[in-house]
């Protein structure tokens, strides 16, 4: 099966309006909404990642659809209430205008790409190569230049490599872990690991968790969204047990 690729939810919506042969301001939200969802489920079936933007837009469509089903009271001054579609229509119209404009830019681009200037050559008063027009230098260039300096500096001044830095004691992590769980506070393991400063530290935390679980000092619980939460059990830690943990 061949699924057309769209560059974002608005492009998909625009295409749906076109397929349904209606004007944008007469968009039939119920129809478009269903087709939009159908497209997303096709994407799902084909195991394609659905960007958050599509999901957001889909939710918006449902919202508009349901608002359209409700009777709309008149406003205080007797005017009909705003059409729930108005915002969407405005966005689509604006998007289509700019999309049309980008088509004309594309045409100009394809023609102008054929225009060549002279290749740079030493000028009579060559200052320095690769100078930028001061008027045109922006924050982006400034930042790029700064990053360039730092990268080059690091490259030319490599830090001496310390193996000793990488050592993390499992016992230390073990003690920290139990301390963090004091008073029955739950502890989100994955987010803690994510904040580890180095591979060595993460490994040490992980070993400490295994050790504590083995000693029945903690319980591990996996939540619905995959998070791993640790709880302290009521069992007391014996001094000789702590001694046994690898330092």
């Amino acid at each position, binding site marked *: 099966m061949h699924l057309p690729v769209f*560059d*974002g*939810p*608005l*492009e998909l919506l625009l295409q749906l309006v076109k397929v349904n042969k209606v004007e*944008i*301001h*007469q968009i*039939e*939200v*119920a*129809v478009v909404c*269903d*087709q939009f969802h*159908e497209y997303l489920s096709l994407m799902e079936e084909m195991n394609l990642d659905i*960007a958050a*933007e599509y999901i957001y*837009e889909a939710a918006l469509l449902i919202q508009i659809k349901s608002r*359209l*089903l409700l009777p709309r009271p008149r406003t205080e001054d007797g005017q*009909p209430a705003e*059409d729930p*579609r*108005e915002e969407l*229509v405005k*966005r689509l*119209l*604006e*998007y289509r*205008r*700019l*999309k*049309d*404009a*980008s088509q*004309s*830019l*594309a045409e*100009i*681009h394809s*023609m*102008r*790409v*054929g*225009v*060549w*200037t*002279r290749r*740079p*050559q030493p*000028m*009579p008063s060559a200052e320095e190569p690769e100078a930028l*027009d001061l*008027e*045109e230098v*922006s*924050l*982006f260039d400034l930042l790029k230049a700064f990053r360039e300096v730092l990268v080059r500096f690091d490259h030319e001044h490599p830090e001496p490599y310390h193996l000793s830095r990488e050592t993390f004691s499992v016992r230390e992590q073990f003690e920290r872990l139990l301390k963090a769980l004091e008073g029955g506070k739950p502890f989100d393991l994955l987010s803690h690991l994510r904040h580890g400063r180095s591979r060595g530290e993460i490994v040490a935390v992980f070993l400490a968790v295994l050790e504590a679980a083995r000693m029945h000092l903690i319980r591990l619980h996996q939540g619905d969204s995959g998070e791993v939460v640790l709880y302290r059990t009521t069992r007391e830690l014996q001094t000789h047990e702590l001694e046994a943990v690898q330092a």
Partner: protein
Amino acid sequence: MTERADMEAVLEAILFVASEPLAKEKLLQVFDEAEAEAAETALEAVLARYENTPDRGVALEKVAGGFRLVTRPELHGYLRRFFEITGRSKLSMAALETLAIIAYRQPITGPEIHELRGVQPSGVLKTLLDKRLIKISGRRQVVGKPFVYRTTRDFLMHFGLQALEDLPPLEEFEETFSSEPELQMSLETEDL
């Protein structure tokens, strides 16, 4: 004092060496104030020399507020072949749309572009910044202080525009929004 023929030669040489557009005033600065009139006539003569004729490969174009010498676009294929250039800069549709949004709605922030296109623009913005078609021109003083983008002089040069006003006009906005009651009745039509 510069001879008239020499003036023409000087102007042509400057245009040949500079690869960027030079404003008329800037070009004429090379001569003394007193010669301004003669210089202007000389410039006209050079312009006439580069009038577009089929046997000329080089043209003098008016772009981004100045003049510059460029090759004629029709010769692109030959030049590509000769200089063995493959794949000259292509802009994706996403990049062109984002560029159009910035060109027509500048100054504009990243979140505003996101809103208009419905897509996170950061990757495309980086591409356009790297190609120097847009620039960051500061921050907007609102929550999050987002960067503000504008098109550059290179943008004008690339698209052969004298100024932003020369952008092709946008289609008229259909302000009228029809919300007749009978239309709402027909909304619940059958599915696909």
